[in-house]
């Protein structure tokens, strides 16, 4: 396997009585697109939150480019959560100004270009924008960074099928190609073609982790069919 950018050893995370992640061991390669797959409640969001340093207590070891999650790793991670995190009082230009101040790898010109391309009024306050448009602005902010690692938590969950294709086009066009991208989703068919590696989570454990091509060859089926078979109720 190529040089790993994320190394996880015996990672376990409990929420009171519930174990969200159980003894995870992974070495994630640099410069690849990794699909984080699993049904609802399998631990995908918890896994990404630990990498993004939003959850700071857990058992085991997490190393991102050699650092424990903290200030150093936050500067190299571009994270898109599954909710709206931009202030309703802001407009797109406020968001660009904010990101430009805090992230050295942020490209404000690219952000402005993308906002224009998506035909979003840069002066319109977010409280007046639709949920879908706000999501697009967030995506623009995340993609306008030349980050080492991109974490996307269900970027297409609430989007109609026509827009999904467009969002993935946008992501693939604009992310830093030398960076690593982890995309969490339960809509496997939409990301089947773009992922280099796949992690399948089940009840907080790694059910399967390998190159997408290897999984397809070994099981003789697409990732989507593999998912359907393995997670059948």
């Amino acid at each position: 396997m190529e040089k790993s950018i994320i190394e996880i050893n015996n990672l376990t995370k409990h929420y009171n009585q519930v174990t969200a992640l159980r003894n995870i061991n992974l070495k994630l390669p640099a410069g690849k697109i990794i699909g984080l797959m699993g049904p609802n409640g399998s631990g995908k969001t918890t896994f990404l939150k630990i990498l993004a340093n939003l959850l700071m207590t857990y058992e085991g070891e997490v190393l991102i480019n050699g650092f424990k999650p903290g200030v150093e790793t936050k500067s190299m991670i571009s994270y898109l959560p599954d909710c709206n995190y931009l202030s309703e009082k802001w407009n797109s230009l406020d968001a660009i100004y904010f990101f430009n101040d805090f992230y050295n790898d942020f490209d404000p010109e690219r952000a402005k270009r993308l906002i224009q391309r998506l035909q979003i009024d840069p002066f319109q306050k977010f409280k007046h924008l639709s949920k879908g448009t706000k999501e697009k602005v967030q995506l623009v902010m995340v993609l306008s960074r030349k980050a080492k690692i991109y974490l996307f938590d269900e970027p297409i969950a609430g989007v109609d099928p026509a827009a999904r294709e467009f969002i993935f086009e946008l992501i693939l066009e604009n992310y830093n190609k030398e960076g690593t991208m982890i995309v969490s989703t339960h809509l496997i068919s939409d990301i089947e073609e773009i992922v280099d590696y796949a992690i399948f989570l089940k009840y907080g454990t790694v059910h399967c982790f390998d190159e997408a091509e290897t999984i397809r060859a070994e099981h003789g089926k697409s990732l989507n069919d593999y998912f359907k078979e393995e997670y059948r109720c």
Partner: protein
Amino acid sequence: MLKKLFKHEFKNTYLEITFINIAMIVVSLLCALLLRSRSSVFLSLALITLMFLFFGSFIVLIMNIIKSFNGKMFTSEGYLTFTLPVSVDNILITKIITNLIWYIVTILSIIISLFLIFLINNDIIGLFEILKHIDIMYFPPAIILAFISIFQLLFFLVFLLFTLAILNIGKVKRYKMLVGIAIYFGLSTAASWIKSLFTVVPLGLYFEEGTYSIHRITTIWNLENFSFSFPLINFNDLLWNIALIIGLYIGSRLMIKHRLELE
């Protein structure tokens, strides 16, 4: 990064506070002019407005603190706040200091408002006459009292932060405001009770007739001229407040680091 945090914290909180502070000064000018013209109907209206603005400024300050702490840290906006490449301490300290500064600015605005009313209705020479009669020896005690007041404000802010952190980890969704008020008053009653149980240093710094002295805290009433002597600094309260500020800050920080529950 701390500088940038301060810049954005001020940018996010300045609007309502600046508006109410400017309104206070404008209405106080109006009051002063009406006082000169002896227009009683408009004067009482302006004075009532000014009183409302004084009161309103503290409501705006409290709302701003809640917005700054709760809105930016414990709602979905926390996803952005806590993924910035800065430490949790930097975030908390920035918010506490910014809100403290807004408090001081508002108190100064109230003082300026009252001063303007006085100034316009007295000639400037008369004002200097009054100032000349104030003995310079009263300035250091005034400065000490100002610092103690700032310290009390700091205590209040950290207490509020702690209350909001408890609300967050308790995942309180319904009647959040009422539960928050109950937690705040419950905790402050408990803190006062503990403080009264353990008197660590029963000493105070007193300023009497131009001299400073440190002695046991006693309230001395003088019935002849209706005056009483109270300590400039109550060392017992001061120590307890320092301990509580440190304890509550560490408590809030631990709750955020270990039990953060974003919406």
